[in-house]
């Protein structure tokens, strides 16, 4: 069964996404949240590549690790973390293009059903085109009701 790493600028957000995803997976999937940067003044928004690397190693399984990140430097941190992994481990990691929350929910459930790394990632990335609110087609005349 694959594992999942949640990377967010906010530690709270990463843990919240883990909470939701964990319920979808009925606690069967290893899901590791990572986020925020610490200095002497406390925790701030941001991502630390070495913390992401540690999260990947904590989550590690030979079946693979799917990394879901929020955006921007979270992706860069994940990419940097992968560069520090041995090539054989790096090959079994994917950084997903999925939206963080929706992707994590779907990935956790699919992973709990035993999906492969690529199958789980494909399902997670499918959430990117999910329609949440069905809206009527816009009026071609441009007027609003």
């Amino acid at each position: 069964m694959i594992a999942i790493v949640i990377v967010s600028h906010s530690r709270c957000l990463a843990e919240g996404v883990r909470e939701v995803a964990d319920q979808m997976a009925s606690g069967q999937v290893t899901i590791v949240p990572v986020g925020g940067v610490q200095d002497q003044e406390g925790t701030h928004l941001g991502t630390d590549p070495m913390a992401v690397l540690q999260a990947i190693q904590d989550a590690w399984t030979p079946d693979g690790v799917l990394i879901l990140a929020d955006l921007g430097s979270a992706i860069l941190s994940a990419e940097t973390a992968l560069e520090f992994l041995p090539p054989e481990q790096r090959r079994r990691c994917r950084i997903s293009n999925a939206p963080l929350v929706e992707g994590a929910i779907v990935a956790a459930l699919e992973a709990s059903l035993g999906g492969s790394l690529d199958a789980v990632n494909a399902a997670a990335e499918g959430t990117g085109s999910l329609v949440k609110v069905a809206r009527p087609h816009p009026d071609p005349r441009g007027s609003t009701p």
Partner: protein
Amino acid sequence: MSRPRPPHPQPGPEGPASCSRTVTVQEPMGLHLRTGKAIVQTANRFQARIAIRNLDQDVGPVDAKSILQIMQLQARQGHRLELVAQGPDARPALEALAQIFAQPGEPAPPS
């Protein structure tokens, strides 16, 4: 808005060991994520191909084994969902799925 793709191949009444039943969403908040999870987990225990169609929204059929597709059913309280299963264990699969929609203390609706 584009409709979800039907499962391929699409189950139909003409196929072998195909059966269907219609259930009604009872939950006040509609078919929410936890119920979707239960459907996917249950459907994946069976070999049968299982499709769900929202009869009241004319959405589907979608694959009952995919949470992504189930979330596109837009199923609210009172909506009728048609479950169509095809395969060697189609009947027990529908029995198990119908249980999810049965109100607490009530038996699943008959086939």
